[in-house]
């Protein structure tokens, strides 16, 4: 080609290119968080119904447990445990938004992008593929945080939950490291969709509910370890989903480590934060290599574009 068409490829240019790409891909999600007001009903208020179901179950158990009891100390202890469970459910129900976003808007996003014809345009562009996934993740985190926060506030108001945050900095650190690990896992899954397409779509549907259970979104997950047998196996498997350790650490930080008699926590907050950091790094590295490998396979097999395109 002629000299007039020479293009830059230095490090500074590449950095600028990839930062612009991250921002560009995050933009639709950030905008999407505000442009359709219907999300307030569907994604902030509707999840309250799921939370409410667990709250009512726990309150029914509480009423049954204290019926006939006369010892005020015993009654108070049961009430405190129930309050702790309700607070756990509201927090878990809030974090469900992130898991659903990772599953349906991160992992399966490349499948959607292929169907609407965006994927080939992304793959043809000079940006790094991690910039594409990074943009999707950052946009998803922002959009989901807005929705999760709305659910949390509504939950606190409706169910009268009180949180006591003694160490806000650690809480923020746990929250962000959990998100990075969770979205790192979503980025890794996203690459698999390049190759598996519709099959992986079914996998997402299959994973949704079991992960709610094994990660303990609606109860302290360490309770499963105490059941033993199959429940312990489910609990161990669930621990590899970053939301599990993240939720456990956040619950300890907002309810206090002595809640539930200190018996329902998986590990200490520091250990959980360290493990989450390891998860974040491992998932991001795996995502990087899986995406490069699977993109090459998809190019070989002609799966980057839909048949009709």
């Amino acid at each position, binding site marked *: *080609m*002629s000299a*007039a*068409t020479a*293009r830059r*490829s230095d490090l500074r*240019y590449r950095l*600028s*290119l990839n930062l*612009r*790409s991250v*921002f*560009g*891909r995050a*933009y*639709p999600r950030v*905008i*999407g968080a505000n*442009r*359709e007001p219907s999300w307030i009903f569907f994604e902030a208020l509707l999840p309250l119904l799921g939370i409410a179901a667990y709250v009512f179950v726990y309150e029914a158990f509480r009423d049954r447990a204290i019926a006939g009891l006369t010892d005020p100390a015993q009654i108070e202890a049961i009430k405190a445990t129930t309050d702790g469970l309700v607070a756990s459910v509201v927090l878990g129900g809030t974090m469900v938004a992130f898991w659903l976003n990772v599953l349906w808007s991160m992992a399966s996003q490349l499948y959607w992008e292929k169907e*609407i*014809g*965006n994927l*080939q*345009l*992304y*793959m*043809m*562009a*000079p*940006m790094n593929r991690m910039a*594409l996934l990074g943009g999707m993740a950052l946009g998803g985190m922002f959009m989901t945080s807005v929705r999760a926060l709305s659910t949390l506030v509504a939950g606190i108001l409706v169910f009268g939950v009180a949180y006591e945050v003694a160490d806000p900095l650690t809480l923020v650190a746990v929250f962000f490291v959990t998100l990075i690990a969770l979205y790192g896992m979503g980025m890794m899954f996203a690459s698999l969709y390049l190759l598996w397409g519709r099959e992986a779509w079914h996998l997402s549907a299959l994973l949704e509910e079991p992960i709610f259970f094994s990660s303990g979104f609606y109860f302290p997950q360490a309770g499963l370890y105490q059941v033993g047998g199959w429940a312990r196996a489910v609990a161990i498997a669930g621990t590899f989903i970053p939301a599990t350790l993240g939720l456990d650490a956040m619950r300890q930080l907002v309810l206090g480590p002595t809640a539930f008699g200190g018996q329902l926590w998986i590990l200490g907050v520091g250990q959980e934060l360290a493990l989450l950091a390891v998860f974040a790094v491992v998932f991001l590295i795996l995502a990087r290599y899986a995406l490069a490998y699977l993109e*090459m396979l998809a*190019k*070989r097999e*002609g799966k*980057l*574009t839909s048949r009709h*395109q």
Partner: protein
Amino acid sequence: MAYAVETRDLTRIFSGKKRQRKRRKAEDGGTGPVTALDRANLQIQEGELFGLLGPNGAGKTTLIKILATLLLPTSGQALVAGHDVAKDVFPIRQRINMVSGGETSGYGLLTARENIWMFSQFYGVPSKVSKARIDELMHTFGLWEKRDARVRMLSSGQRQKMNMIRGFVTDPDILFLDEPTLGLDVNASRVIRDYVKNWVKGRRGKTVLLTTHYMMEADEMCDRIAIIDRGRILACDTPTNLKRTIRLDTTFRLEVDTLRDATSFSSIRGVKNFSSRDDIATNRTHLTFILEDEAPVAEILSRIMGQGAWVHSLQKSEPTLEDVFISMVGRGLE
């Protein structure tokens, strides 16, 4: 000399999944994998508006996808801006862009302007530059009024104009246009064709590879054309030279009542090739004959009337690119 695009014995075979291979074998009598491109050799020079003309399934889109680094060749080599599409994609991706007809890309929630801006970011175009280019191109393509309309509210023609702007906003050196006017009305097609022609001719170092099965579009726009069918490049030259290859032949077009059997004409002496197309709406058959001279016309008319069909029109015409195609492969582009 380095070409903008060069392919050397480029071959792409789609083997498909095992179950698809089995089904295909059962359906077409055991032809096995599909060869979408078969040792294709092309050289496109910088500054050229090059056309690929062929029917659906000829291998045009496969070739463009390989050149756009979306698909790997099975064998052979493809070079874009002097770089191998299988080994050195970054410098290629910096220089190219692609627009396909009937594309539904983008996000319905975003406005047309935001959508184009988003795609420009993946090429590192500074926002200020990108927005200025978008505004200019929106005026040129007549989309300014719709700049703030959400993409899902745009008509298919407006959407295609938006896609075209997406293709130009990154200021590529090589632009791949895959049936860019597919399904568009006359005016929208005209705007796109005029802009593409001016873009290539008015700027130094710009190259367009256009695939189409509209012969008029190829004839009107392209400096050179490659005729492709079943993955093979059958001919490559300027439109004038391609038509000259059959200038010694005589082309007749007939419109007749729908024929029961339109296959028997090939046995008539002097018929070099012919194509037939049934029009269900009018209940008529359109025939195009490439003849050595006018002698076989009487026999052709006799066979048509022998089937009880009326001849509604008969016309001797100058050869078109479609006639070139018919003379080469024995059927039309549709």
